[in-house]
């Protein structure tokens, strides 16, 4: 259905509506990011006076550094640990919330609670909750008659402990986002599958998941992006330690630029991370584009 236009076709001044957004994004997002990229090829430092072109030296230095490489492998590990649990757990919770019951909306809002806590505050909270004296773990261990120490200081358990905090924050949010999608699965398809006697796993795979494809991909992007760029909570939980077991790219960039006064390398690290996220984003965009197409009639993008 074409859009009726009562205006002369010469200039569509309604595009001015987009101008403030474009300005704000350009000045405060795109311009700094672009300038940052240029700066990574120099030795520019906001507190220095002289700077020169250095080519790829900053990137080389960052990747040659053991901490820099550890940051990326930690990010990958963290994502591999946390995201599947968040996705599966979120879906399970959403499915459990599908049928209405008394107090369901309260439960659904209650699931937002962990996400409401800022990542930084979550770091403070879990630093103490993991503590052997005052924390949940310590209390549970005392009940089991065992000794315990904070996993955050343990070489083996620090990263899983950090992953656990991420899961705590994001799994309920994923569930919250899945609920409308899960509710939109047509009941008659589920009934039909039940009549056929399909086992639950098959019903999930054949009936439910296809309806959730774009939602799944979108939530997946959100989860992967949040985990890859984690900084605030890890800053408080472990500061990147012990050693470099929990350092992440964003944290490393932050440490380089702020504490290490190595601005060029910090910015280079930030851009490497941005590149990684953009890569993931490109895969996402390719996968969902047609589904949301505004021109393809099968898309949901109003291309009727």
């Amino acid at each position, binding site marked *: 259905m074409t859009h009726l236009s009562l205006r002369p076709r010469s200039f569509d001044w309604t595009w001015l509506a987009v101008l403030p957004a474009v300005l704000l994004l350009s000045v405060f997002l795109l311009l700094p990011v672009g300038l940052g990229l240029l700066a990574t090829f120099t030795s520019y430092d906001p507190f220095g006076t002289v700077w020169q072109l250095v080519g790829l030296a900053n990137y080389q230095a960052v990747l040659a550094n053991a901490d820099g490489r550890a940051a990326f492998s930690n990010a990958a590990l963290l994502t591999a640990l946390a995201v599947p649990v968040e996705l599966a757990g979120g879906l399970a919770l959403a499915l*459990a919330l599908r049928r209405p019951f008394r107090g369901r909306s309260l439960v659904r809002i209650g699931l937002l609670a962990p996400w*409401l806590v800022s990542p930084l505050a979550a770091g403070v909270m879990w630093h103490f909750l993991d503590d052997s004296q005052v924390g949940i773990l310590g209390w549970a261990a005392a009940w089991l008659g065992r000794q315990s120490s904070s996993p955050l200081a343990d070489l083996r358990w620090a990263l899983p402990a950090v992953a656990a905090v991420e899961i705590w924050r994001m799994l309920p949010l994923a569930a919250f986002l899945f609920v409308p999608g899960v509710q939109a699965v047509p009941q008659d398809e589920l009934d039909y599958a039940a009549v056929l006697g399909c086992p639950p796993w098959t*019903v999930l795979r054949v009936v439910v998941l296809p309806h959730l494809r774009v939602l799944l991909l979108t939530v997946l*992007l959100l989860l992967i992006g949040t985990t890859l760029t984690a*900084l605030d909570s890890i800053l408080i939980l472990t500061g990147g330690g012990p050693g470099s077991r929990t350092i992440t790219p964003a944290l490393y960039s932050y440490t380089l630029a702020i504490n290490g006064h190595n601005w060029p390398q910090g910015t280079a690290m930030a851009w490497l991370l941005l590149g990684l996220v953009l890569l993931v984003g490109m895969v996402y965009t390719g996968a969902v584009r047609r589904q949301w197409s*505004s021109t393809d009639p099968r898309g949901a993008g109003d291309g009727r």
Partner: protein
Amino acid sequence: MADKPGPAGTSWEPRAPRWPRAAGRVAVLTGGLVVSLLPLVWTLLAALGLQPAGRDWRGTLTFDNFVGVVVFEPAFGVEFAYTLVVTGTATLLTLLVAFPAAYRLARVRAAWIDWLTPGLLVLAVSPSIASGLPLSSLVRATGLYGTFPALVLACAAAQLPLALWLLRSYLLRVPVELEEAARLDGAAWLTALLRVVLPVLRDGLVATGVLVFVLDWNLYLLPTLLADRAPHLLTVVMRDFFAFERELEWPTAAAALLVSLLPAGLLVFGAQRALEGLVVVPEEGAG
């Protein structure tokens, strides 16, 4: 035995889906709620003065720790108020800028919008340090470091991609016929936007506003990079509580944590109805 399907017109009740079984559902929900809320309850108990000691609990219920927060950080009240003002202004600015833009973009029928829309979400999850570091040096160079406008504009810009994406998603569900009817009645574009579309979108605006507020309230990196001087924002204050040598006792930290959770919590609770309708993805097409 299940009833066999009868010919059209005869009664046939579909057997209720056997999955997930009620007990399993209750277990999953209880588990989810416990895992989500237990840490917060633990924090609340600590803030109220109860701490575990071995297997037992000790301490008495008291509000001393909340007082202790202000004793530890005398400027806490000012910082709380300042954070409220900064976050509120940034949220309003984001909504004000995003709504007309999302409206215009929602009516676009071109191939490039199919790249822009997911691209907005990708921007929304991008690391803010990539823009934050250069922005910080720009802000220093122009003498705007620590100023209210710079902070508010930067925070507003940071949430703009998400706001645009969410609002466009809501606007796609508003039938075009609604505005076209208004247009046929002679309404100008702006009038149609304000008088016809805005009321329909009220829930969407509230939901987007609440989410943007929470994200802005919880920002740490941007305030640290752009305005790490008095008055600090609450997240920066919490880091200061913790990072430097003035390391905090758990009860006081717990109290500060819960107080800083209040605005976000109250907003979400108050906007329940609007948030329930939060649909992150438009309904799938026939495909």
